[in-house]
């Protein structure tokens, strides 16, 4: 990889053949080894002060998400209130990073979050399947940005990726990035559908080369969502990409992360793979909904020494 310099990188996306050669030239991922490494890091024992620090950081990294057909303004407003003050009983509890909703709910969220510093993220590009013509995906994106979203979570064209049409995937992401204007772009790889770690690594590079500000694991709408080894591979990709280009890209595991224990495992993974620079809500997020209450429960346990029942935490 060191043979390629930052200036050559524009040429790797000049043709389908060049991009294919580049992606297939990336070092492979050994499945057994990657899973073993992730499992080993999962055994780190994070206690007391380290745990308290990690829980607060994890809360600040949550993209509090509701992506349901049944979403209403009332539901979204309630979630926004929770985002501002996750624990009404404790003012020292930090707010979350962002609210993540469908485009139609963006105006409600933006209004409810005004002045809070909490970002409004909108899924777009015919989320979750992405099976729509490009012009519709771009219109979807522009509408969300126009309605006030400052972060866009797009899905890549998995059909094109699995068919080997890498340049098409790249060009779509680049077009969406342009449509985003000032909004940050998170590129959802839907790793559960990509299936192999080699594919995850290649898709990560396509997302970064095309200008994505974040790479994100999953929509949460297919059976396999975020896993530790997949996130490990993506963290290696953003680390290597920064080494090569100097540009830092964030990572967002989403879907299936429900407990504090899990969240802390991810933070350990970040710490020991990409490093300190990524331990910040600007560079690492959790796409989650139920995770937040478990974080709050554990936080209360650490400060008071006792577990409070689930009724002491708000359900929104």
């Amino acid at each position, binding site marked *: 990889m*060191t043979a390629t310099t930052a200036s050559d990188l524009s040429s790797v996306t000049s043709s389908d053949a060049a991009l294919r050669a580049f992606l297939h030239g990336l070092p*492979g991922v050994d499945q*057994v*080894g990657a899973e073993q490494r992730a499992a080993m890091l999962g*055994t780190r*024992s*994070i*206690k007391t002060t*380290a745990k308290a620090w990690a829980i607060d950081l994890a809360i600040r990294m949550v993209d509090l998400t509701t992506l349901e057909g049944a979403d209403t303004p009332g539901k979204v407003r309630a979630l926004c209130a929770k985002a501002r003050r996750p624990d009404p009983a404790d003012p020292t509890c930090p707010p979350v990073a962002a609210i993540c909703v469908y485009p139609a709910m963006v105006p409600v969220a933006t209004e409810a979050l005004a002045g809070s510093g909490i970002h409004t993220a909108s899924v777009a590009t015919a989320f979750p399947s992405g099976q729509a013509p490009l012009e519709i995906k771009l219109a979807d994106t522009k509408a969300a940005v126009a309605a006030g979203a400052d972060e866009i979570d797009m899905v890549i064209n998995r059909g094109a990726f699995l068919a080997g049409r890498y340049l098409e995937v790249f060009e779509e992401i680049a077009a969406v990035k342009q449509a985003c204007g000032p909004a940050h772009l998170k590129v959802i790889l839907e790793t559960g559908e990509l299936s192999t770690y080699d594919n995850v690594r290649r898709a990560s590079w396509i997302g970064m080369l095309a200008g994505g500000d974040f790479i994100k694991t999953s929509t949460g709408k297919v059976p396999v969502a975020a896993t530790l080894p997949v996130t490990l591979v993506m963290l290696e990709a953003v680390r290597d990409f920064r080494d090569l280009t100097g540009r830092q890209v964030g990572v967002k595991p989403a879907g299936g992360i429900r407990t504090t224990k899990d969240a802390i495992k991810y933070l350990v993974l970040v710490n020991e793979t990409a490093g300190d620079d990524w331990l910040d809500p600007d560079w690492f997020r959790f796409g989650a909904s139920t995770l937040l209450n478990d974080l709050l429960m554990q936080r209360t346990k650490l400060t008071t020494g006792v577990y409070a029942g689930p009724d002491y935490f708000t359900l929104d």
Partner: protein
Amino acid sequence: MFEYAPAPESRAVVDIKPSYGLFVDGAFVDPADGAYFKTINPASEEVLSEVAEAGPADVDRAVAAARKAYDKVWSRMPGRDRAKYLYRIARIIQERGRELAVLESLDNGKPIRESRDVDIPLVAAHFFYYAGWADKLAHAGFGPAPRPLGVAAQVIPWNFPLLMLAWKIAPALAAGNTVVLKPAETTPLTALLFAEICQQADLPPGVVNIVTGAGETGRALVEHAGVDKIAFTGSTDVGKAIARSVAGSRKKVTLELGGKAANVVFEDAPIDQAVEGIVNGIFFNQGHVCCAGSRLLVQESVYEPVLASLKRRMARLRVGDPLDKNTDIGAINSAAQLERIRTLSDIGGEEGAERWSPPCELPENGFWFAPTIFTGVTQAHRIAREEIFGPVLSVLTFRTPAEAVEKANNTPYGLSAGVWTDKGSRILWMADRLRAGVVWANTFNKFDPTSPFGGYKESGYGREGGRHGLEAYLDV
């Protein structure tokens, strides 16, 4: 900065007695001449306990007990009944796993993560595995009714104290032998706890005897006229001495000795996992591993990215308190071993290799050595030829597969090797040519009771583990 708070495993789970006798004929007994030696925690130099030093009279007594148990009980017992005892021992090891892990880390200095997740589970697995063979020896490929050998004298090293005990005792007992085992003088405690487990399992007296002591005790044991079989794991020098001393006698011998394994990384390797494998190969158990991947052979075309990744990864290694659950590298087992590692490392520098260690703070007390790599090493350097048995890696390069094979085999040892490549055919091509008892492909330091382990050349002879491991304890 994400600083991990201390996460120490509790010492309270293990009850260390102030003094231990010898385990002979099912009971703890005082040594004949009343001599004891101390065993310390290498991470703090704190004295953990004192342990009997067995002299020739004690060894005599232990061998006699083993002989009696062999003649009267164990060799006559049906295999299915021997299996019951072995299964019982395996289950007790699992039940007392935490206790054994903590004691192993205290006496040896290895991180609790390794004793908990690697050593002790493998110990139990070995007993379970060979328990299964005890009533199936007729189907092991050594004839319709293979006979045991008799009394086995077993001498084990300090790097995996309880695991090496399991590798020795489980197949010996399954095959119908009785044993006298001598643990290393710096790590006797888990063997003595194992003796208690034998009592707890109601193992007939004399089937397992444990005599503690140093080199002299070991010599008295292997040279004893009453033993039929010698199994030794340790240094090549001692192994050669044992082979000489038994020449011309009826004793059968298996030796598992030193190594200087090549870990070969090709340009098409999965680099991130290869780096993990390099780290695991040489820094696992502080490099106190006979099959450690102590020579890294990297294809020149990927030398720079591999080395950069390796250094970045090494900077993440957590060196310190072995009982902390987040420790990756614990203490060096003894002052003598630390001295040897220092001496050979200094020679590496004097011979012109470039030495590098990540910044890391070492505790004040105890025996510690920072993870270290030497670059610019050639086959002519002593650090590329001699076994250091510590967290020190020599990095060499190669240009072609043929050169990799030539360099990998250019050593008096032949215990293990590693190959990292995405190309399946190349793995097989390499495995055919590497003169090593174990060749790992895209992994390293993986052990399993079903898999035979042992060396070529000066790494010893005989195999432990698997069906092959039975052969060493049967009259075939």
